Each structure stands twice: as structure tokens, then as C-alpha cells.
């Protein structure tokens, strides 16, 4: 019989309480709070400009992040953000292992939320399992239906929050309440509703195992000093069931209660050692500690530790030494390297933001034709000037040319009329045609610098170009 497929076993994580569970709750509240709340923050930028603190205005082609305002040509800043995010992830991984996976990844956070809903409606692990295995009773139908309904609502709110980042939130929610929404918004809300519902409701750990590229190359960031979740083999083994009053002599502290396995959202047994499915969430630590307290043994049979400390402890045991205290080596070549990249990219970004010019000038030399011979024998070159006025005020500028001494600089604004000063309205791009006319000189190609002088502030923007003659 050919087996066409293998059904993945469904995981029913059991409820657990403890330090790391609380950390996860806190992370979930903070992260979801930021995600759902951030579009509602206001930031006053003056009249005629959106007052939403974080806004990507696609139709207006502007990005706003509090005091930072970027134009389409400054999207390279986004590249900086992505580099920082990637290296920040590497840095965190080198120091603390997969903390991102365990606490902060959207896949983890929403899955956690969905499992919480599942538990709230259908009960804990055993009840859910029983419900799934049992026949379709009325109880099963309403419990399942309610779960999926809540999931869909969460998905809808998730998709709803996403579109707020691209539209003015208060006016959009007004449209939402009156059911007057642009089609694009509906499509996005729909897509994110379904993807949230599918990813957190069904795909869950499979995303980490099969789809996530980061899960696959994280091992490159690992070394023997990276924090991982480890089961203290030397203390736990040989494991076995234990009855109250039995001696602990000649056996390990693991009582094989399977608590660490049933709470695991990835469905693995951490006692098998470090494995790629482990997202380092620490729930097995909470589960094991609860059990250890009950049977009055020290906590920490499963704990966050480094491979180096594990080896040292095993070595201590073998040589019958007193156990040395585990220690963390925070400063290692790779952590220093990642930190240096973060500092470098971060300061470049900061510099780019602080030194951002309020006026930009681009000069395009007309190449068809490169030069024009006039009746008098003079040579003319044509240029197209783009002036970006990034301020929120109308500005006027003077144009000066350096590098050659032209007989005439003719500026043509829109409309076929020569002008002397150019005016660009607030927050917009002005385009001007400029003609330089010179006597025929010696060099075939001359460097020319266009200078744009803001008449109100005296600030200068410049752009290099060239002047061609036969």
C-alpha cells in the first residue's frame, strides 16, 4: 500500500503557570497593544499634513514616523531598518537563543492567543482531545463554532488594524462603522483575516517547522555559549516513575510525568536534547518546575543554559568534582561583531535622518540632443531640474551655475515663459527646464554644478552635471 501522505498529529498544549508563561503573557499584551494601538497615536506636524504618528500614505507617497517624514526616494531608510531588524535578530539569537521565536514572533503571539481562546471555550488539553475524538454532539458543535467565530473576529481585528497604518485611523473607522470603505481596504482586511485565521488557527507550529526560513538558518548564529533550553541529563537520568516515599538513590530526578511534553506548543520532548523544532519559549521549564516543587526537589531540571555549561556540569559529575557554577559569556567575537554592525548601521541611519535636507535638487542633462548649435555659433545645453521642497511651506529659489561662465541661463517654468526665480509649493516637486548658452569653448565636456539657493533661508542644494559642446 502506497502511503500518499502523512497526517500531522494535532498538538493540544496544556495550560501551565510560571515565570516564563507570565513573560509570554506580558510580551503578548505589550506587542498586541503596540500593534493595535500604534495607529491611534497622534503627532502634530502642522496644517495640511496628516497628524497620525505612524502612517504610510500610499496615495500621497509619504511615510510618517513621529518626527521623521520620508519621501519615496528616501525609502533606502527602510533598507536600514530591515538591516537593523535582521542583525538585531542575529544579535538576540547569539545571546539568548531563539527568544524571538519563543516570545515575540507574530506567529507565536497569535498562535498563543488562539490557543488561549481554544482553551477558554473548549477546556484544557484533555477536554479538547476528548471533544475532538468524540462524536458530533450539540456541545461539540457550539464549542467548535464559537471557537472559530472568535478566531475570525480576532483575525478581522488584526486585518483591520493593519489598514489603519495606511489610512487615517479615525476617519477610516468612521467609514468602517458606516460600511463605506474603499475596495482595497476590504481586500486587505479580508486577506489578513483569513491569513491570521489560517496561520494561528491551523498551520501553527507547521509554519515554524516547514515555512520559516529563519528557523532553518538560526543554527548559524548558535555557538556553545548561546542560551538554549536544556534538560539536565546528568541529574534527570535514569528517569522513571516515582512513588511518594520511594528513595531517590540510584535514579534520576525525572519522574517521567510527561508534563514538559504536554505543555509544548511544538509537540516535542525536550529531554531528547536540542532540536530544530524548539522555539525556546520556556513553557516546559515552568511545567517541570511546578512538578519539582510538588515532589520537593530543586527546580531547574529543565532550564535555560548554554551548551558549554552543560558540558562542564557533566564533566564535574564524571570527575566527582564539586559542581562549578554555570556562567554566561556575553562578550564573544560574534556578539561583538553583531553589536558593531548594529552600531554602524544605527548611526548611519541616525545621521541620514538628522542631516536630511529640506530641499533636494536633481539635474538631468538632456541627451537627445546633447548640445544645440545656435545660428550665432553659440552652444546651448538643455537640462531638466527637479526641485523637491520637503518643507511644509511654499519656497522660492534662485538658480546659479558654477563651473562655466554661461552667456545666458534661461529657466522655463511650466508654461512656455522664461522666469528668473523659481517657486515650489509646500511639500511638492517642481520641474523646470533650464537652458545654458555659452560661447564655444575649448573643452568638449565641462563639469557644471547647479546651485539652488533658498531665498528665505539662504540654504543651498546642489547637483553636479556637465556641459557638452562639439
Amino acid at each position: 500500500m502506497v502511503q500518499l501522505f502523512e497526517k500531522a498529529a494535532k498538538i493540544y498544549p496544556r495550560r501551565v503557570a510560571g515565570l516564563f508563561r507570565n513573560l509570554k503573557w506580558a510580551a503578548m499584551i505589550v506587542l498586541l497593544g503596540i500593534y493595535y494601538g500604534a495607529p491611534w497615536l497622534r503627532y502634530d506636524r502642522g496644517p495640511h499634513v496628516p497628524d497620525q504618528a505612524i502612517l504610510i500614505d500610499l496615495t500621497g507617497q509619504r511615510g510618517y514616523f513621529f518626527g521623521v517624514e520620508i519621501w519615496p526616494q528616501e525609502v533606502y531608510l527602510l533598507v536600514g531598518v530591515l538591516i537593523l531588524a535582521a542583525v538585531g535578530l542575529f544579535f538576540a539569537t547569539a545571546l539568548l537563543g531563539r527568544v524571538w521565536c519563543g516570545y515575540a514572533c507574530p506567529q507565536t503571539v497569535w498562535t498563543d492567543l488562539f490557543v488561549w481562546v481554544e482553551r477558554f471555550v473548549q477546556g484544557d488539553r484533555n477536554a479538547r482531545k476528548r471533544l475532538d475524538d468524540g462524536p458530533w454532539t450539540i456541545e461539540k458543535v457550539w464549542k467548535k463554532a464559537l471557537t472559530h467565530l472568535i478566531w475570525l473576529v480576532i483575525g478581522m481585528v488584526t486585518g483591520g488594524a493593519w489598514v489603519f497604518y495606511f489610512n487615517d485611523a479615525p476617519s477610516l473607522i468612521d467609514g468602517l462603522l458606516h460600511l463605506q470603505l474603499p475596495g482595497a481596504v476590504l481586500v486587505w482586511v479580508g486577506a489578513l483575516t483569513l491569513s491570521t485565521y489560517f496561520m494561528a488557527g491551523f498551520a501553527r507550529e507547521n509554519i515554524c517547522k516547514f515555512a520559516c526560513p529563519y528557523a532553518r538558518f538560526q543554527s548559524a548564529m548558535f555557538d556553545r555559549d548561546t542560551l538554549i533550553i536544556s534538560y539536565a541529563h546528568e541529574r534527570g537520568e535514569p528517569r522513571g516513575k516515582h512513588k511518594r516515599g520511594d528513595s531517590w538513590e540510584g535514579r534520576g530526578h525525572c519522574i517521567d510525568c510527561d508534563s514538559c511534553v504536554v505543555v509544548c506548543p511544538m509537540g516535542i520532548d525536550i529531554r531528547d536534547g536540542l532540536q530544530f523544532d524548539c522555539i525556546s519559549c520556556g513553557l516546559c521549564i515552568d511545567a517541570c518546575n511546578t512538578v519539582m516543587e510538588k515532589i520537593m526537589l530543586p527546580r531547574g531540571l529543565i532550564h535555560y543554559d548554554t551548551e558549554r555549561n552543560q558540558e562542564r556540569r557533566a564533566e564535574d559529575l564524571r570527575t566527582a568534582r564539586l559542581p562549578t557554577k554555570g556562567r554566561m559569556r556575553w562578550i564573544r567575537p560574534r556578539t561583538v561583531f553583531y553589536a558593531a554592525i548594529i552600531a554602524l548601521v544605527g548611526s548611519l541611519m541616525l545621521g541620514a535622518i538628522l542631516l536630511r535636507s529640506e530641499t533636494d535638487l536633481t539635474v538631468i542633462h538632456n541627451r537627445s540632443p546633447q548640445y544645440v548649435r545656435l545660428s550665432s555659433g553659440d552652444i546651448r545645453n538643455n537640462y531638466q531640474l527637479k526641485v523637491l521642497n520637503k518643507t511644509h511651506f511654499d519656497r522660492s529659489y534662485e538658480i546659479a551655475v558654477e563651473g562655466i561662465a554661461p552667456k545666458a541661463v534661461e529657466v522655463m517654468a511650466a508654461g512656455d515663459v522664461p522666469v528668473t526665480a523659481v517657486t515650489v509649493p509646500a511639500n511638492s516637486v517642481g520641474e523646470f527646464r533650464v537652458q545654458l548658452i555659452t560661447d564655444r569653448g575649448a573643452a568638449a565636456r565641462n563639469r557644471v554644478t547647479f546651485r539652488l539657493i533658498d531665498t528665505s533661508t539662504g540654504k543651498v542644494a546642489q547637483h553636479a552635471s556637465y556641459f557638452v559642446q562639439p
Partner: protein
Amino acid sequence: MTEHHEEVDDATGTKTTGHEWDGLKELDTPAPRWWLIVWMVTIVFAIGYWVVYPAWPTISGHTGGLFGWTQYEKLKVDQAQIATRQGEYRRKFHASSFEQVAGDPQLFEFARAGGSVVFKENCAACHGAGGEGRKGYPNLNDDDWLFGGDIHQIYHTIEVGSRSTHADTHMAMMPAFGAILKRQEIDDLATYVGSMNATQPPSVAWVNGQVLFQANCVSCHGATGEGNRELGAPRLNDAIWLYGGDHETLVETITRARAGVMPTWQHRLAPDDQRMVAVYVHSLGGGE
């Protein structure tokens, strides 16, 4: 397949396919169920696609799809949308004089952009993509105009062409002097025309040429070679030459004469398109 014997890998407990390469064995791991489902969904999607969209070739054409969707129809709809968007400006342009267009920045940019497109489709073949011209085809960027460079004159030239089939076409006609003057005389004339602005007579040939010029050429090209736009006679005392200002080319021009042709665009382009091209050409830098 009779050779195939079931073998189970010790480490994973999975069956092997029975294939072995240098000790490496291939496990017959089943695909996950979700993967199989996604695969089947794509197949179902493909069938739906065949039904809805044109997909399969038939002997005389192809299957039409449920809703008769075609790229041609899509293009028509898109172009209709664009035409609607442009409609407002087109109407405004239609009702505006050239002077009104020049004074309205938005309308001017619309006309210039539209004219640039029409120019590239119709005029660039001879005048070059940027109107830079080439031997025999005038450069439209410079300030030298055979028939006048203000926007009305440019528009008129576009409308009637030069030596075209249009009844009112520009009809400049220079005689071929090869049959009128001797070879030596043409040589002297070319020497004079090539350096008309010289203040001191540089040679005997130049002086002879000057005499010949006064006798044969001034009626069209003017006493100082300033040209005559009424007749379409080019200005000769400037730095711009349509066919070349070197001695040999001048000899050739005088001997055989030149008669470049530009077609009339009156019936080829819509009137507003002709006007847009005029706006564009006028804006290239030489407009008067």
C-alpha cells in the same frame, strides 16, 4: 519491480525506496497531508481557470472562457478610462488658443507631454527622438527656422508640410546651378558662401564668388545671405547648415540643389494632435 524488497531504515523507522547510491539510501518519507491538499487545490484552481479564462487552443482558435474575457477587451476598457481622465484637459486644450495654453502651466504640460508622444510616433523617424535632426532633416532645437519659428508658423508647417501633396504646401525651389554656372564658378561661389561673414576678402576665389552670389543668389537668400522665410530660402550667414557647411558639400548643394520633403500632417493627425506637436516643438528651445 519484483526485485523491490521492503526495507525499513533503522534510524528513522521509515521505508526506503530500495534505491542505493554508494551506501546512501533514499527514504520513502510520505509528504505531509497539508502539502498534498495544497497540491490538489492548485489542480482544482487550474481547472477553474480553464473554464473562466481563454485557455485551450482549438483548431480554429481557442476556448473563449465563461465571461469572454480577452486582453483586447481589457485594453479597450483601460484606454477608455484613460481617455475619460484626459477628456477634461483635451476639451480645455481644444478651446484654448496657443497663447492661452502658454499661460496655463498645467494645460501647457499636458499639451507638451501629449505632443512629445505624437512627435515620437510620427516625427522622430526623420527629426530624431529629441528633434535633433540630421543631414537634410532640420534640427528643431535650434533657433534657425526655414519657414518661421513662432508657434503659429510651426503649426502651419506641420499642417501643410514642405513640397508635399497639400495645396498650400511650402514650395521652396532652388535651381540646380550645375546647368547654369561653370564648374570653376560654382567652386568660387562655394568658397564665398562657406565664409560669408569674412570682413577682409581672404582670396580671389572669394571675391569672384561674392560677385556670382550678388548676380545669382540674392533674390532668394538676401544680399547678406540672411535668407527669406517667405520663400523658405535658408539663412546662409549663420553657423547652422542643413546639409553641411564644408566646401565639398556646398559645391554639391549648389550644383544639384536640394529639395527635402516633409509630408502634410493635416489628414494624418487630429487637429489637436498637430497643435500639441507644435507646442512641443516650440518648447524644445528654439521657439520664437
